[in-house]
């Protein structure tokens, strides 16, 4: 079979290195738009938190703290296996690349299962803002606001995870089809960038939702 790097070089690029850098810049510009998307929500959350600290701490105390902490560790591990997948593609080890991609997909699924278990527990505790919300404390309105942010931001994050799982599945299929070599593996790198970015978002979500009220339990 012909070297995939020769087949993959588009005519507008001088060489594979230039093509790779162009793709990387493009991916980072996309990630910057994602930073602004999550950043806007993060800013809004900070403003509300500052205005109503008691209600937001109480909402934070209603989180499933240990599930959140475990999920953070789970996602960090999946970022590590993704980094190892990129490493395998750089060194041209195709079967190892497939194994690490598969591991990343599976660990990502573990994260989603834990996340949706948490959602179920919130449903069970009647903490669905606007639909099924039960709280008799004086700060109930702000606790509800906390849960609006919680479901919006973790939901948007979970959606990104699901998209990421799809991207990684596509990468796994392309690996099996032999599309990558040690000279051409840019898609793996870009999928990795996306996956690590989603991991970074979760690191912040864990910090703002789970930590502040953890000691109140």
């Amino acid at each position, binding site marked *: 079979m012909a070297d995939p790097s020769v087949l993959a070089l588009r005519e507008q690029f001088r060489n594979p290195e230039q093509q790779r*850098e162009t793709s990387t810049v493009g991916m980072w510009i996309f990630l910057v738009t994602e*930073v602004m998307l999550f950043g*806007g929500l993060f800013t809004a959350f900070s*403003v509300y938190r500052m205005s109503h600290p008691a209600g937001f701490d109480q909402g934070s105390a209603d989180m499933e703290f240990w599930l959140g902490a475990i999920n953070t*560790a789970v996602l*960090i591990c999946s970022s590590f296996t993704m980094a190892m997948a990129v*490493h395998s593609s750089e060194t041209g080890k195709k079967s190892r690349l497939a194994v690490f991609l598969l591991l990343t997909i599976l660990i990502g699924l573990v994260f989603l299962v834990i996340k949706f278990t948490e959602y179920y527990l919130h449903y069970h505790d009647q903490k669905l803002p606007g639909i099924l919300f039960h709280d008799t404390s004086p700060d109930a309105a702000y606790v509800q606001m906390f849960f609006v942010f919680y479901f919006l931001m973790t939901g948007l994050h979970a959606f990104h995870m699901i998209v990421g799982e799809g991207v990684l599945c596509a990468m796994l299929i392309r690996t099996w089809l032999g599309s990558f070599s040690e000279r051409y593996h840019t898609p793996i790198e870009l999928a990795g960038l996306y996956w690590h970015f989603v991991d970074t978002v979760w*690191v912040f979500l864990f910090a703002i939702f*789970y930590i502040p009220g953890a000691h109140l339990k």
Partner: protein
Amino acid sequence: MSQSTVSVKTYAFTLLTLLGLTLLTSLLGLADLGRFSFVAAVAIAAVKASLIACFFMHALYEAKLVRVVMAGGVIWFLIMISLTLSDYLTRGWMPFPGK
């Protein structure tokens, strides 16, 4: 061309540091730091995010143009949040007659 950007050792060290920081932030959460628990949690998260960006996302090893784009994202985000919070945090600092 079979050179890797970052060694397995560096990745493993990054993983262990990130897991350690997750444990630290969890323990800090269980201790009562009052108003500082939010600030401390976000500060540790920022350290973790930089570790992920530098080593897992190869930020330290990319071309200048790529780093400019990354810095652009961070700077624009900081402008958004600092200008917004400089309003909300300072409300009520100055007494206004009739208020």
